[in-house]
């Protein structure tokens, strides 16, 4: 296939206020109502790098069940990209950043 550009392809237009977010320092244009996952995958092919071995991941179930689409947020902690709507000024990362002083841990392991 061609060079990695975008995973998702929009086929139904969305109308609404323009929203800009940043992912790994790159500005991403989205529309209010887009999920973070849809916004990021219309501009790229990955959401995060796995804690084990840094392999790329881009979500899986898209319905809030598999928990494979969590991305790191500068606001602290992580957000589930498939069920979180985009918001203006969101600053997101594929990997935890050294500058995070106090990442809020989620529970749910056990």
């Amino acid at each position, binding site marked *: 296939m061609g060079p990695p550009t975008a995973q*998702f392809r929009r*086929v*139904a237009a969305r109308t609404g206020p323009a929203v800009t977010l940043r992912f790994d320092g790159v500005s991403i244009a989205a529309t209010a109502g887009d999920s973070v996952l849809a916004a990021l995958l219309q501009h790229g092919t990955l959401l995060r790098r796995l804690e084990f071995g840094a392999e790329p991941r881009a979500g899986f179930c898209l319905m809030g*069940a*598999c928990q494979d689409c*969590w991305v790191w947020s500068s606001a602290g902690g992580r957000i589930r990209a498939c069920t979180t709507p985009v918001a203006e000024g969101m600053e997101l990362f594929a990997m935890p950043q050294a500058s995070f002083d106090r990442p809020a841990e*989620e*529970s*749910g392991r056990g």
Partner: protein
Amino acid sequence: MADPVIVGAGPAGIAAAEVLCAAGLRPILIDEGARAGGQGYRRPAESLALDMARLMGSEARKYAALHRRFEALLPRIDYRPGTLVWAIDGDTLHLLRDGRAETLCFDRLLIASGAMDRIAPLPGWTLPGVFTLGGAQVALKDQGCLIGSRVAFLGSSPLLALAAKQYREMGAEIAVIADTTALRAKAAALPALLHAPRTLARGLWYMAASLRAGTKMLHGAVPVAIEGSERVEALLLHDARGRERRFACDAVALGYGLKPETQLADLAGATFVYDADFRLFLPKIDGMGRARPGLYLAGDGVRIGGADAAEASGALAAHAILSDLGRPAEIAVTRRLARRVQRLRDFQRGLARAFAWPRAQIAALDDAVTLCRCENVTVGAVRASMARDLGPAEVNRVKAITRCGMGRCQGRVCGPALQELVAAECGGDGLAAGRLRGQAPVKPIALAAAMDGS
């Protein structure tokens, strides 16, 4: 007396709320989703220019009717969208809404938690671009997006052909529809499928539409790998005659039918029984959906039956609540609903044979394949744990040793495949492999919120 609580605003939950409202009650309807309809009848936001009537095809009328009925109900129910039930403790629900925790006590609880895809891993299935089959439909209905431009549909399910048809109509190229169940197994299951001739006809029609459109459709395919370095580049498989086939694609939709989301029923105290046809542990219910006093289960969250069965079983469980509250029984209505639910669920039992869960394929997986996406546990690690462990092979022991099923998804994705790997150690006996127990929180929540609520 507290108002009855319904969890899940899909067809089952909405139909249940309708029956309770008609009897003068004001149910509390809790839904994790932001908009009612569940997964199948998911309603796109108004801002999305998506022709749902076209997308829903033969089910468009039911889809529109359900949402009209829900809107008529709204003033008469306590509807709480965007609310996660993350734990159930005795008669208390632990809720999370907008990051805030709260509790809710109940006398009568109806859980209609819906279903998700059942997944069999294969090499490369964690690559970006591989999504569940249900996820491929959610991307379209919820976000107006295709998961890729050239999509392969892999698994075993009548929904492969349905989703491929929707994708084709929205402009995707279909690389292949590869179904792992052989055509002769499908033919053998036909008599059981005559329980619901209309649904059967619809399924055949989707397949015919694929053939008419010139889509490559394989039955009895044996998946080899999803190939690619940083993303999906091709699907490699063997066809029914054993020939190697490689299909270039940039996305794969993967699904082997649906499995009920039973974690909440587990926490609410339901008893589980092994179902040898589906090879799943399912909550035990009576003919109306009672799991224990005060607990009712309906829809695909307890038995896969599809949207029509979900609606009927939701209404039926609501009648059970009314009858348990001492209201006069509506015997004729109840009987009709029970017959309908039974017929549609029998049909799904037939489908489970026509579209088989690939247990042999899972038992034969290479050691290097990732089994657990969350904790990055391989098939080999699971096998090694069973070889080392002195006790009998059992899923919860394997989970404790390997962390497979212990990650953020709580075994929702890897659970059925893990069960088959353990069953393979037990001579193929799924019952002996045991049941992955549900744990709170059923989904990850901030630790601070959990402290709030306790």
